[in-house]
């Protein structure tokens, strides 16, 4: 007994469609991921932020609220770290939140932490110092959105 040519033709095209459906499904997953990461990292944000909004507002954090630390210059440019309320350690140590590989950075260089809704930057006794704008950090400095923090060749800011 042989299978009818029609059935073989049907299977031939059905399989191609199936294969492309799989690809389409994966692309959908990637799209969902892009949405989730375009909005500030989901951690510690209220549910309502994930509800439907226009894409332009989705990329922006809620006004007056800092949501992420973004590296804007240097070898780690483009890297984002969400502000979840826990302190962020910056330095060459392997267990830092942001691991710098920069000859001008110290092992434990700086810390960004939150106290009653305000984010502070502290230098942890680094050799080459930490700069906010043009001035060297000496003791805890409150941070605002868009102010450049410079450590060695890396520049980052809060958004």
């Amino acid at each position, binding site marked *: 007994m042989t299978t009818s040519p029609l059935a073989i033709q049907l*299977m031939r095209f059905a399989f191609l469609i199936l294969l492309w459906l*799989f690809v389409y*499904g994966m692309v959908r997953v990637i799209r969902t991921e892009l949405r989730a990461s375009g909005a500030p990292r989901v951690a510690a944000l209220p549910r309502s932020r994930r509800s439907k909004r226009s894409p332009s507002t989705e990329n922006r954090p809620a006004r007056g609220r800092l949501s992420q630390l973004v590296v804007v210059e240097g070898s780690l440019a483009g890297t984002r770290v969400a502000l979840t309320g826990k302190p*962020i*350690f910056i330095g060459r140590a392997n267990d830092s939140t942001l*691991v710098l590989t920069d000859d001008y950075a110290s092992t*434990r260089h700086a810390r960004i932490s939150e106290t009653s809704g305000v984010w502070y930057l502290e230098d*942890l006794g680094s050799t080459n110092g930490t700069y906010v704008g043009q001035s060297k950090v000496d003791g805890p400095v409150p941070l605002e959105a868009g102010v450049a923090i410079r450590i060695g060749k890396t520049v980052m800011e809060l958004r």
Partner: protein
Amino acid sequence: MRAPSNRLPTRRNTELLYIVAAAFVVACAEAIVEITRNSSVSSHVATYPLAALTIGAAAHVAVRRTARYADPLLIPCAVLLVGLGLVMIHRLDLGLAQQAAENGQTYSGVAAASQVVWAFLGLGVFLTVLFVVRDHRVLARYAYTLALIGLFLLLLPAVLPARFSEVNGARIWIRVAGFSIQPGEIAKLCLTIFAAAYLVAKRDVLSLAGRRVLGIDLPRGRDFGPLLVAWLVSIGVLVRNHDLGTSLMFFGLFVVLLYVATERVSWVIIGVLLFAGGCFVSYHLFANVKQRVDVWLHVFDYLQNEGYQMSQSLFGLGTGGLFGAGLGGGRPELVPVAKSDFILSSFGEELGLFGLVAILAIYVVFISRGFATALAVRDSFGKLLVTGIAFSFGLQLFVVAGGISRLLPETGLTTPFLSYGGSSLVANFALLALLIRVSDAGRRPPTTPPSAVTTDSGPVPIAQGRAEATS
């Protein structure tokens, strides 16, 4: 899974769903092959999808336990490719058996069965790497050891006598006691790790020192050292092993990592010029290289001898056309060693351009997730490591696809995950495990360092105490 609002979604359920879907696609493929050829289905319809599903499920469980936040698409892509590879290898076995029967011989090849065994070995390696390497950054410590191992493996076939290393004219094998392994695949793994670690350490020197000529930043003479070593090795492989593919892949990998690490276009320009110059010189100096290029350029003049494999592959792709001959409907077994080097042309013949592009799209998804991982991870070594891994998959695929379609001279490289071949499959599973490991580190909520102890009150960064002690 609805993640609690204070946690990032891990997307593990998406992963499981796509692993099951991949196994379903594999089951359909195998069923179509058997119905088309024999009008009935055998137990293989269950075997291969189950093998793919088992591998996927085991990897999935391991990822749930040790790398919860890893990218959800990497494993399904690999499972689908391994599964489709199994189906195609089995289909070639059937074809070869029929061909032998027509000639009054018997064909006793059971390539598909041994590929299943290799796939499970690959799974074993995947699990081992995932459980042993809990933090990818420790790999940087073994950079120079790995570099030595890698170079040794890469050059070993070149210095061994031909009877231990030569298969079909390419000396890229080590054959011992009935086993043949292709050390280049394992060398790729070692050298990628080395290049990433080395460049993280030396990046500043390579990108800052130098002069600017004609708008291009030229590096200093002494910084050329590593690039020249990589170049010499790759040209040596080309001349001695008769293998453009391996040579192109290693040099390309190194140049791209240099470019990514230093953001200097000059390295790419210098690299391309060096490689082109090296190829040109070896073409004129060495007869065997010249002959290979000659066969490549005038393949139909060598229809019955050196060009047979290539021209059969082209005929196969032509037969396939846009929509293919249907799984089981073509004669892909006419291409010699179709199951390893030319498996993409088998898919091209049976699934057509549309099917072949779908398979390439699966690779594109896999590779793009690798690059996305490189962007997300927060340490330079991890970034360079996954960039290297993802790029080497891409370049390897380019070399293989170029090889079967005569864009490049034919090479002895395997198609990652898809091809028949134990060492390649095992090495690719190890690379997959590293990708998963780095991807987990990149997508993990940021203030949980890998070394932190997680308690009920939330993660406690160990760094905090130490940092305060030093501040």
